[in-house]
């Protein structure tokens, strides 16, 4: 397996509409969450969420998820010229897709059966694959895959994009993760009592759950041919992808993190890295009491002594399928600039975890591990390597 160059990145989140704004805000440990104002969740108190204030106008995007995805994808391709002769694929990661319009339509339909006449317009983009089709058209892409594996989807999309490039199937492949806030996810996580009313606090002793968010991230991966044709230099490399299943429970992580450790080991093996080579773990770090303990247990199983680690969830919220790609984009920034990002929301160490996330600091980073875990016991890990490590 090859180390595949990353030649473009894009991001839109509650912290800003491009990579630079987003990463600068993460370095300042900005709090990206605020009371939900996008729609009425029906909960007594609006939950704290990471919301995108304004999305740049995107041509005829059928829904908010598509607008976010197009914004990030275009940023990742903006500087890549002479790509007309290259084959381009996209791998799209989403859980919500067109659900925001579907749930609004269904609510109205329940109130007024006559509303059924609007079904054609409102449900045209319900299927997740419709998002990929729209993005293909807007980006002049030729092929695509649409993945949905809950909160781990984004990293699987990067892993599949890596494979599509290294097998020669496509010259360029953009992994795009996109999700928007929806009634389904807010009420769903609320029904599981997994939303922290005071905002998420990753790895903190007082943590009590997640803060949902919305956004999109995009990573453009390139073949050697694409590097020659475009003349673009790698920003970093995707060097390993690991995937596994817990086989334990549909929502709770394996307490010892056995499945997560399996995915991380597979990613390390593919990257030809030893555990000691990892300089930073960009954790999944959702801030639920169980998840953070299980993730650290898994990392101890693999690494023994923990490398530096961070979580970006308080800054950009838990953006579900987008989270893996968005946080991978910011991990590429960390590699490029040699900076370990801080963990907003963390204040007090937890005895059960017995480890604290890193303070913001300058450090030469060569390899970063990015983790994502999801419902269904789904685990994903990728290794991102410095541009000098190709």
């Amino acid at each position: 397996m090859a180390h595949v160059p990353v030649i473009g990145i894009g991001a839109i989140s509650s912290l800003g509409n491009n990579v630079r704004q987003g990463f600068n805000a993460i370095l300042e440990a900005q709090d990206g969450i605020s009371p939900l104002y996008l729609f009425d969740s029906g909960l007594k108190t609006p939950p704290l969420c990471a919301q995108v204030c304004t999305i740049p106008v995107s041509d005829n995007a059928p829904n908010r998820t598509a607008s976010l995805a197009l914004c990030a994808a275009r940023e990742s391709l903006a500087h890549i010229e002479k790509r007309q002769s290259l084959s381009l694929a996209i791998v799209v990661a989403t859980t919500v897709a067109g659900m925001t319009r579907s749930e609004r339509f269904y609510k109205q339909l329940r109130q007024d059966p006559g509303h059924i006449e609007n079904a054609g317009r409102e449900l045209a983009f319900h299927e997740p694959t419709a998002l990929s089709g729209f993005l293909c058209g807007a980006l002049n892409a030729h092929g695509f895959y649409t993945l949905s594996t809950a909160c781990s989807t984004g990293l699987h999309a990067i892993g599949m994009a890596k494979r599509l490039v290294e097998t020669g199937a496509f010259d360029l492949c953009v992994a795009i993760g996109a999700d928007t806030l929806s009634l389904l996810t807010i009420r769903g996580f609320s029904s599981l009592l997994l939303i922290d009313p005071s905002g998420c606090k990753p790895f903190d002793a007082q943590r009590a759950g997640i803060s949902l968010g919305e956004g999109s991230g995009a990573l453009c991966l390139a073949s050697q041919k694409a590097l020659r044709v475009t003349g673009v230099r790698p920003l970093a490399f995707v060097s390993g992808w690991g995937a596994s299943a817990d086989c334990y429970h549909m929502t709770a992580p394996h307490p010892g993190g056995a499945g997560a450790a399996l995915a991380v080991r597979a990613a390390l093996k593919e990257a030809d890295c030893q555990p000691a080579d990892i300089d930073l773990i960009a954790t999944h770090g959702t801030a639920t009491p169980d998840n953070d303990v299980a993730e650290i247990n898994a990392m101890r199983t693999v690494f023994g002594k923990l490398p530096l680690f961070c979580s970006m969830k308080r800054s950009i919220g838990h953006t579900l399928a987008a989270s893996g790609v968005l946080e991978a984009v910011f991990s590429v920034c960390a590699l490029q600039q040699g900076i370990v990002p801080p963990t907003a929301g963390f204040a007090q160490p937890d005895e059960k975890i017995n480890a604290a996330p890193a303070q913001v600091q300058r450090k030469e980073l060569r390899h970063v591990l990015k983790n994502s875990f999801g419902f269904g016991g789904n685990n994903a890990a990728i290794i991102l390597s410095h541009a000098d490590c190709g």
Partner: protein
Amino acid sequence: MPRLFFHMRIVVSSMEYLSILSASAVLPSQEATWTDEVPTTLKRRDPRIWQMSYVAAARAMKNCPEEPNSIIIATALGALDETKNFLDGVFTDGLGSPRNFIASVHNSMAGKLAQEFKVAGPNLTLCDGHNSLASAIGACALLKNEDLPALVVAVDENIELLDRLIPYLSSECKQALENNKQEGAVAFVLHNKGGNHGPLVRSFGPLFIGSREPDKSCTALIQSQNPDGQTAVSLPSRTDGSFLSVPISIHELFRARSSGSFALCSFSPSSKAIAVVELCQ
């Protein structure tokens, strides 16, 4: 790896051939007794779409000489009934059921099968509408050797709400859903051992065609890959239009041991994309 020229002078590659080690199907409209094979624990609590997935997977694995190391689900709409039930709860009394929410995620079938059959490797769910099986086979071809064989299950369900909506949908959505009475699950165990290890399958796409005509695009794609014209072709307009058309056809050809090369084409009106699954046996 063979390469082919497609529209816009862009070179698109096919995936490698995979061996079909075993295959099975659960089509409730054709066999009323399939639920007899659902374990009591699943029958009591679990969604119908999980149960169909379970029985199809169990049948495929029972006839398979090797155990799978990964699971790939192909689904257009996922656990639609659970999504509807959760929203009904929210809109009726303000309380959605956590159980419905958990099951509503598109990858819930994949997670459940991993848990039931203890398959700890990669666990992916591809949601490309009518092209989902092609996507799943493509994803399978991208897995590492140690992650194979893979259990690939194409599954979708029909619910009463869809029947009510269909007359009001746009022509494209209508075309996508009106024949989708064929709910069920079709399972394959796939390996990358070529040669003597059973019938072979590979996929092309999904490939975006925009406003181009699906049948013509599929024909051009297949002709560029099989210039000798020896492949029997089933175009999108000749299928019943359901999400499961291609998986069911592949399963029937596999069971009948029909010899030759077959190209089963699909078109997703939602994404305006075509895909081809090619079976050689």
